[in-house]
């Protein structure tokens, strides 16, 4: 099959993830967008892995690691945003601006 197909899928997922990351206000939606980005990466990795088909299976191995990393990140991320929710009563990312420059 065409290598470019999975690659284009990967690019599309990554791009969509970037958009969501930058635009979604709810922190959980942001986390979801990140998952999309990582999936984009993984599609590439798997496709290239198939393409090169080398012995170490580096692409697929990394894809598995990325999935694991994503899980860990989501876990911790949720903990952080729950904390945020406890502190602020909201998980709107763009409202968490207590820490900022104060150009007087």
């Amino acid at each position: 099959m065409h290598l470019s197909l999975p690659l284009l899928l990967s690019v599309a997922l990554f791009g969509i993830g970037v958009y969501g990351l930058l635009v979604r206000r709810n922190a959980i939606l942001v986390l979801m967008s990140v998952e999309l980005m990582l999936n984009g990466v993984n599609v590439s990795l798997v496709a290239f892995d198939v393409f090169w088909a080398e012995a170490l299976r580096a692409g697929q191995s990394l894809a598995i690691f990325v999935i694991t990393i994503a899980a860990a990140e989501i876990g911790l991320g949720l903990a952080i945003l729950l904390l945020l929710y406890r502190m602020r009563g909201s998980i709107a990312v763009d409202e968490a601006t207590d820490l900022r420059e104060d150009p007087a």
Partner: protein
Amino acid sequence: MSDQSLLSPTGVDLVFALLALVAVASALMVVSTTQIVHAALWLVVSLGAVAGCYLVLTAEFVAWMQVLIYLGAVVVLLMFGMMLTRAPIGPSDDLTGTNRLVALFAAVALTAVLGVLVVDAFGSTMIDVSGEPSSASVMGEALFRHWVLPFEALSVLLLSALVGAIALSKSDEEA
């Protein structure tokens, strides 16, 4: 592998393209829907489609991992997160911030640049997906023969994420 033009699709191509279309469309829904819960559902669809793609690409093990971890764990976690933060069930207008133009620009630019580059580099490259799927045993061998170190490091990562999450969730009660 023989060089073939992008415009002469094979059967596998069509299957993959369909799955990809589903994945992309539902991904778009994830980032644009006005209901948080829907977003989670669309995410499930998208990730499932991607898992299908992996299967087409003969990456069997990765596909199972995708289903297990993502659909089984991550999405569930996210659902819990929604519940705990009392996410509204109905549609809400304020899910998208004011950053839309910049975000759109960044996303489109990134997609365009990478898309052009990818097509430029591999536009006519074919891959062979008729071979033996890389099953759990294949991947396990690769992982434990060569990727022990990152694997072990990941265990530290998971553990620390776990402990961190626990510590954070109890941190205020003790204070």
